[in-house]
Every structure is written in C-alpha cells, then in structure tokens.
C-alpha cells in the first residue's frame, strides 16, 4: 500500500524538526486524531508538537478537515496550528 506523506508547518514543523516525512499508511478506518495520537507516542518533538490535539488543525490532500476525518486513501496529510494570515 502506498505511503502517506506528512507535512508540518509553523511550530509543529519546528518541534518535530522536519518539513515532511513519509510514513506507512495507517490501518483503514484510522482517523487523523488516531494518527496524531500514534505520532505523539513517539515522544520528543512529536509529543511536544502533537500532544495537545486541541491546538492542531489538519488538511487532507490540501483541503481543511476536522481531526475526526478518516485518512482513507489520501496521499498527503498536513498538520499545523490554526492559521494566522491576512
């Protein structure tokens, strides 16, 4: 099964110290929140960046989605804090 690309922005990127990475695709039916919990369990910067999902927002294949969205066959998941443009 194809890999999933994770991309990080702002302080999520800084804490994890990666712009992006490719991981093994989670089990069918897994939500973004499930994956966030699994990544946070890696500890270190992952725990720091992803330990409090209420501070996070996500986009699946470049569309904003809620964290309870199923990842399904999406190719790219972005994790980041609430946006502050404009």
């Amino acid at each position, binding site marked *: 099964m194809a890999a999933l690309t994770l991309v990080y922005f702002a302080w999520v990127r800084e804490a994890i110290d990666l712009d992006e990475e490719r991981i093994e695709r989670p089990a069918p039916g897994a939500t973004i929140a499930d994956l966030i919990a699994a990544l946070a369990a890696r500890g270190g910067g992952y725990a720091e960046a992803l330990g409090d999902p209420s501070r996070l927002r996500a986009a699946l294949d470049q569309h904003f989605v809620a964290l309870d969205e199923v990842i399904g066959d999406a190719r790219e998941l972005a994790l980041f804090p609430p946006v502050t*443009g*404009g």
Partner: protein
Amino acid sequence: MRRIAIQTEDFDASAELAALEGLGGGGVASFTGIVRGEGGLAALELEHYPAMTLLQVERIVDDAMARWPLLGLSVIHRVGRLEPGARIVFVGAASRHRAAALESCAFLIDWLKSNAPFWKKEHFADGATRWVEARPEDEAKARGWTR
C-alpha cells in the same frame, strides 16, 4: 478579471487599483494590510503551505464572485520576512455597486485570516521569536460570513 498572487516581493497597490478601475464598474474598494512595528517587533516571517495556498485562495475568490456582482477581484499575499511598515496583503474588488465592492473586501480579508494556510512568526529586536496565535474573534468573523 481575477488575479491571485502569492509572492515574496512587495506589490504596487496603485497598479492593482488601476486595473480594477479600468473594468468599467463604477466602484473599486481595497484593503491593504501593513506590518505594525509594536512591542519591539523587528520582523514578521510568513510561512505558507504552497501546495494548498493558491487552491484555497482560488476557492475564496470563487466564493466572493458567487456572492457579489463583481467585475474583478485581486488578492495578493506576501510570504517570507517582512519588516514593520511593509505591506502584507492586498484585496481589491471592482463592482457596479459600492456595497458589493466594500463587503467583498471585508469578506476576503476575514476569510484569508482564518481559511488560508499562512502562519506568522514574530521576530523581536532582542532576538526572541513567537508564533502569532490565531484570535478566536478572527475565526468568529470568518464564520459570520457563512450562510
């Protein structure tokens, strides 16, 4: 006319306005955001999600064109390092109706603040840095346009 640009360089607001004024609409409204230099701010650093930014801004522009009778829209958002006094963002709208031009600018800027993938980091004169936190009232304003 619709023009969308995400760029590191500064932009010429008067050229944008002139293009919108040339559409024959009778009214052109604009909003320009500028970096404020308060609290010892040395620079703002704007990060974005390139694969998503244009897609999202195009959706916002399509939304505005569907909501108001507009002849043209122009959205420019800068990224990278911006010092106090620098322009960050420009939205401009041309319409036959002054209210449509002004309201669509308010809509676009509110929506960009809460629905486009940009993040601002503050760099202070003493070397400290801080990611700007989203303001709940900005999300509320953007939701206020939902109907």
